[in-house]
């Protein structure tokens, strides 16, 4: 299976996402924002970072990048798309997932190992988890406060489109503690925390067992492989 990772001007975590894909057992394909070509990949990741310096709104300018025309087309055809942090902001700006992001309610950048609850384990990116499972992966953002109007919040809650929820601490003031959402079909998922930074022992969050041994993020990448194999 080939998973594309798109690099935008200001992407930071594209290499980490490629590595996570490789660790999970698939082949990462580096894609470029300025191309109109997904190179026939089976899934797409929009990585974290600060594309265009967060100018205008985080993810806003990147959501109009040339390759986003192909991403939107592929997403609407059911190709799995994962947006991580800045990638989640791009998905929201491109209207591929509901809602939007504003500056963190406490006005500061935050970085912490964040506990999440998996609220929907039937998406292309979460099928290796069980619903209700709690995972810890790194979070790092300035504009991470998920907002939407009351009607949209009621709809995403009612339709099972809330995929992840913050547990113990809401790190940015997101409505309903929402950390990640999907489109209605479940092939497009966006979240603020970073699963790609928790896929390999020695480089993940600390756990009770050992320092930096957390690999709770690996399931995102094994999930998409499974969704491809069983599709």
């Amino acid at each position: 299976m080939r998973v594309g990772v798109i690099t935008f001007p200001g992407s930071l975590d594209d290499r980490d996402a490629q590595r996570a894909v490789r660790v999970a057992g698939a082949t990462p394909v580096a894609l470029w924002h300025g191309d109109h070509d997904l190179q026939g990949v089976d899934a797409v990741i929009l990585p974290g970072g600060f594309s265009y310096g967060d100018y205008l709104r985080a993810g806003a300018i990147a959501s109009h990048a040339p390759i986003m025309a192909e991403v939107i087309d592929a997403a609407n055809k059911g190709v799995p798309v994962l947006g991580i942090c800045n990638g989640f902001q791009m998905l929201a700006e491109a209207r591929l997932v509901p809602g939007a992001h504003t500056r963190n309610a406490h006005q500061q950048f935050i970085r912490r190992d964040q506990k999440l609850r998996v609220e929907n384990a039937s998406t292309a990116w979460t099928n290796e988890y069980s619903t209700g499972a709690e995972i810890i992966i790194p979070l790092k953002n300035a504009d991470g406060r998920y907002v939407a109007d009351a009607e949209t919040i009621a709809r995403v809650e009612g339709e099972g489109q809330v995929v992840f929820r913050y547990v113990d601490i809401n790190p940015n003031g997101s409505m309903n503690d929402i950390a990640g959402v999907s489109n209605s079909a479940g092939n497009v998922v966006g979240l603020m925390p970073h699963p790609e930074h928790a896929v390999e022992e020695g480089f993940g969050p600390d756990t009770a067992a050992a320092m930096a041994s957390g690999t709770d993020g690996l399931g995102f990448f094994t999930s998409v492989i499974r969704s491809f194999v069983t599709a």
Partner: protein
Amino acid sequence: MPTIVVEIMPKAELLDPQGKAVGGALARLGKSQFSSVRIGKRFEVVVDGTVDASTIAEIRELAEDMFSNSVIEDVVEITVDGVAVEAVSA
């Protein structure tokens, strides 16, 4: 060359952390008569050529779909060389 100005504000019902921070600073400066601050954006767009109805339609579409995000912001005013354009959604 004509200049089109687009002004955008965060939706009234949403927290504006930036405005809140400035409001807090004003209070610390003893300017507490200025009780609330909200911060928006102003875009000055220079047009190469003349402004006609289709230019206005195009800038309105850009204002609503790119300059602003309707989930969190409203386009509050569009002016052409200082003259307000009618029927701007807010």
